[in-house]
């Protein structure tokens, strides 16, 4: 991967180029707050280095919150080609890892989900290194670094006077090739500056998460049952589902049908396993009638079952579940408390 130095004006030119053939979203501060959101890029407007992930998970661009997935009877048995998703700039490393989780769910197995897969292959991603590590950031906790290493088309690393840009795909390189005048050698000083920035961000992430560092696997801790600890952590849950809907890896959905004139539509919407009705069967029975069972199920899915099926944890460490929880539930504190209790029991 060859790195180049580009100025702010070249970044704008790259976004303008993409905007010529479709919508471009870019991360930006929702002033006056520090909240970062994706906003539409307008031609000629500068790109703002936020250094922090956007509030919206990327899944909403590929696996829509609500979408018609079938109309019957009388339509061909094929997925209609969905409109191209917008190109996205300013994507953080955690959200790239989240896409890998979604890819494993929607693009593997006997039935590829064409709605997701068609959008996914056309999604152009410009990622960025994180520099603004916040209290809810848990990328290092989830096993990744606060800067992208793969899974992007282009990545931007903020350095003095501009950015270092890397292309990790053919189409990313093609975009750069269309702007040769804006590219220059980064030189050893800027490369060293980037490395220093990255090390500082990684250290900052670990500084925040040091108190949550585990010596046991989360998978093993999940089955440890001790002194009402799970009850204590779930006691503030109001079952709003915010943790699951904001999660960039959660993919559960509901299918429902409705009449639409002379035809019928099948709608897919996001769903959340913390809802009491989520797994309820005809006749009223449920495998997880209690909130604590649903609460534990969520963690088992992410840190046990998904590992068994896909080989990695279904958590990107983005911290949205912590940030969005009105009950102030923090999975890092939960796992740390379980481990502490387990260690205390083993030494008794």
């Amino acid at each position, binding site marked *: 991967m060859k790195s180049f130095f580009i100025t702010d004006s070249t970044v704008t030119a790259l976004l303008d180029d993409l905007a010529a053939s479709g919508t471009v979203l870019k991360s930006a501060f929702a002033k006056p707050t520090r909240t970062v959101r994706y906003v539409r890029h307008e031609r000629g407007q500068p790109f703002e280095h936020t250094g922090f992930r956007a509030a919206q998970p990327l899944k909403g661009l590929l696996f829509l919150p609500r979408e018609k997935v079938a109309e*019957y009877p009388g339509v061909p048995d094929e997925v209609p080609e969905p409109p191209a998703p917008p190109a996205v700039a300013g994507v953080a490393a955690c959200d790239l890892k989240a896409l890998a989780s979604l890819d494993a769910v929607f693009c593997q197995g006997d039935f590829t989900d064409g709605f997701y897969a068609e959008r996914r292959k056309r999604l152009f991603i410009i990622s960025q290194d994180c520099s603004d590590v916040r209290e809810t950031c848990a990328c290092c906790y989830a096993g990744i670094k606060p800067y992208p290493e793969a899974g992007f088309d282009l990545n931007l690393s903020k350095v003095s006077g501009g950015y270092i840009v890397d292309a990790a795909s053919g189409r990313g390189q093609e975009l750069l090739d269309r702007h040769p005048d804006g590219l220059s050698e980064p030189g050893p000083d800027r490369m060293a500056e980037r490395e220093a920035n990255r090390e500082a961000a990684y250290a900052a992430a670990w500084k925040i998460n040091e108190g949550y560092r585990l010596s046991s696997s989360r998978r093993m801790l999940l089955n440890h049952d001790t002194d009402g600890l799970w009850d204590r952590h779930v006691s503030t849950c109001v079952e709003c589902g915010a943790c699951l809907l904001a999660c960039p890896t959660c*993919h559960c959905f509901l299918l429902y049908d409705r009449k639409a004139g002379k035809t019928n539509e099948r709608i897919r919407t996001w769903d959340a396993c913390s809802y009491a009705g989520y797994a309820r069967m*005809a006749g009223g029975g449920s495998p997880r009638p209690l909130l604590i069972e649903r609460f534990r199920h969520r963690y*088992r899915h992410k840190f046990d079952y998904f590992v068994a099926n896909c080989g990695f944890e279904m958590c990107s460490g983005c911290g949205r579940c912590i940030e969005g929880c009105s009950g102030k539930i923090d999975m890092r504190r939960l796992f740390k408390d379980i481990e502490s209790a387990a260690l205390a029991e083993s030494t008794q």
Partner: protein
Amino acid sequence: MLNPYLPQPAVVEAVIDETPTIKTLVLRPLKPISFRAGQFMQLTAPGLGEAPFTPSSSPSVTDRMEITILRSGRVTDALHDAKPGDSLGLRGPFGKGYPIDKLRGKDLLVVGGGVGLAPLRSLLLTLFDDPESCRKIAITYGARNPAELLYRQSFDRWRGLDRVSLAVTVDNADPAWHGKVGLVTSLLQEQDVNVPDSFAICCGPSIMLKFVTFELLKKGYEPRQIYLSMNRRMSCGTGRCGRCNVGPYYLCKDGPDMNYGLIKDCSNVFA
């Protein structure tokens, strides 16, 4: 790319009243559907929704499919109201189906409860058609009362087949009933099967599966010799919507019949 969420039209050819709460729909799909016994279909009541059912007919017939339905909610109410000529929708088949290859040359103990005999009927018809399939097929079946016994008109024929025995019980008898009274678990110990060289396949409500499993373990079955048709809410059929899991397994793609040896340590197995 095929759309896994789109149902194909299926015309209702006949409606069979099986019991006061159970009907069988004979469906003719637009295109023949190949399936293995134990795989399930999503049957759509147009505009209302869909629900999962394992066909009760033989997989050897692909241009007709029988689906036996217990009235238990909004969608099944609509399916019970279906009339010959109505158009419904079918998606599937989904899941793995019964482990028929493993049964070859073995004794098989079949345990059904209520409408749970419907998927088992597809298995039985498959096994009846193949003389090499099992050494012995011991069928045990229980229903709430005599009126709720499913496929009662087939019982004499099944009993007359080589290799096959059938024991039936009801929870609550009526004056005309001269058969056994009690839960289906009461039939298991008396079944003459060579347990070490046998499999048990069970389908029924969760509470029945739980106590049948305990009884089978008491009879000497190892967990790996027991297959259970698990009860969960299956929706997408592709292991993605998330709600039909038992531990790491998604019933809609890994089941719905699960080897008890695989799931016995999972949480809430018999929920």
